[in-house]
């Protein structure tokens, strides 16, 4: 649970820093490429660089029985959408997950609702649908293996995975 809290806090901090440049129009960030991303945020914007927020902030967590992207994760989706609109050759796979309770196939469908929610927000933010594939692992790849509420919450998640 503590790692989850830490993550939430770092994401909240990053969201605050992103808010400072939220007036940058999407089409302008598209013209600049990686260099201007880096200049505008003071951070490395490279999904394959482990130091980059694009590599570090790749998960969206969902409330129980909910498929709306929580407010605190909208900035994460916006960050990736900005990168993808400016790197239209780059493809991502959005991988939805579900907690271990319940049926295999129904959980696969629930994970898909989570990945689809992220994919929809990305396309609304201007990302080309051809850059995105939303899939689900259902309950097949639990990140947390326990049976506590904290473990279940850890697995109600969609990950943004950049394809090489």
């Amino acid at each position: 649970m503590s790692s989850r809290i830490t993550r939430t806090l770092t994401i909240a901090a990053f969201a605050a820093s992103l808010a400072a440049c939220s007036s940058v129009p999407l089409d302008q960030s598209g013209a600049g490429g990686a260099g201007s991303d880096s200049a505008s945020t003071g951070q490395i914007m490279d999904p394959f660089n482990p130091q980059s927020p694009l590599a570090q902030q790749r998960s969206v967590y969902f409330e129980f029985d909910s498929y709306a992207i929580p407010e605190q994760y909208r900035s994460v989706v916006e960050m990736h959408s900005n990168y993808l609109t400016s790197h239209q050759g780059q493809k991502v796979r959005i991988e939805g997950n579900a907690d271990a309770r319940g049926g295999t196939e129904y959980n696969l469908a629930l994970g898909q609702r989570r990945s689809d929610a992220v994919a929809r927000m990305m396309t609304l933010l201007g990302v080309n649908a051809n850059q995105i594939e939303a899939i689900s692992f259902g309950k097949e790849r639990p990140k947390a293996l326990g049976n506590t509420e904290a473990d279940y919450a850890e697995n109600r998640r969609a990950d943004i995975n950049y394809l090489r």
Partner: protein
Amino acid sequence: MTLSHASGLVARLWRRTAVAGLSFLFAAAATAPAAHAQLRVDISGVGATQYPIAIADFAGSSGTQVSEVIRADLTRSGQFRLISAAGAALDFQSTVSYGDWQSRGADYVAFGSIAQSGGQYTVSYRLVDAARKAELDQVAFNGTEAELRRISHRIADRIYEKITGVRGVFSTRIAYVLQTGNGYELQIADADGQNPQVMLRSRQSIISPAWSPDGSRLAYVSFESGKPVIYIQTLSTGQRAPAANYKGNNSAPAWSPDGSRLAIVLSRDGISQIYTINADGSDLRRVMRSPLIDTEPRFTPDGGSLVFTSDRGGNPQIYKVPVGGGEAQRLTFSGSYNISPRVSPDGSQLVYVTRRNGAFRIATMALNSGTEQLLTAGPDDQSPSYAPNGMQILYSSIQGGQSVLAVTSIDGRVKQTLSSLNGKVREPTWGPFTD
């Protein structure tokens, strides 16, 4: 009553080292080496009606083993009470003293002989009704030593059918996924959990195996490419090919009763929706447009409709819709979580998983009246499927912290578990009649 067949189980633990160095994805034909670990069988409960029957040791070599398999089959059904045939010394030609068997308490007596010639075995059997003093059945089977178990199951099937009037399922097979620390194995085994064989070995998940109606092929979902893709594999050759590999998820395959088409679930247009497709992958058709999840389609036995799980009403419930699309009819109304439907072979019943007070339980519903019966107590019973004669239901269960397969009679009175020492047994599905 508890009966165990775990002989040799510990001694024959799966030799994992033998496969560790092989490629992590391995498809096998049905002739591939066995999985080296039987499932352990435990039985509890008795049927409402129990037929008293004596199974004499068959005369000749391997006669005791054949009789043991028949006795175990009939006992497992919960519908028979075994009467000791110790010291009977009957062979196929014997004249039966009906009165003696009646005084022992046996209404029925089965006996026979095994003749062996150059590796070929002939198993002859007879079944008599001691109460009515009548001959009920006699037949002979030929086969190799390796086929003696299968012949024994065939004889048990005949005994079951002659006495109960319902076709036996002892010679049918089941498919399931064994999840170990090393990965996943798609296995098929005899209905008693014996003779397991590995059809596919993968480091990634394998889920939702589905038998073709003739028992020759399995459709299933494999995550080997990093996402769910539907494959069809021919059991006799091990040949496999993707049947649906569209953008997004490809899952929940179910065969039409004539084997020509599959109902499948795709997320190519967003969230999970139901489609049908030819078994060769051609002629994709979308069945419905639903605003929310539609999944787990299963054909009704007449092939005209699909039952499926949908959360279109706010929580997952079971619905029915014509295969060609149209108005969906809601079937389940009790509780807020009903999933994984299957229609019984005669079309009269539905089996599904229902969540009650946090426990996932197996339930059936009479389709004409809507009367529901809870068959199991949970806490995590999943993936129910009917035996092809409709008399039993196979499902996965957590018992004592272990993932096992379990079978319940459709009245819930008799239960058996099939467990493995090697890992979690998941996603079971009972195969069809094959002869």
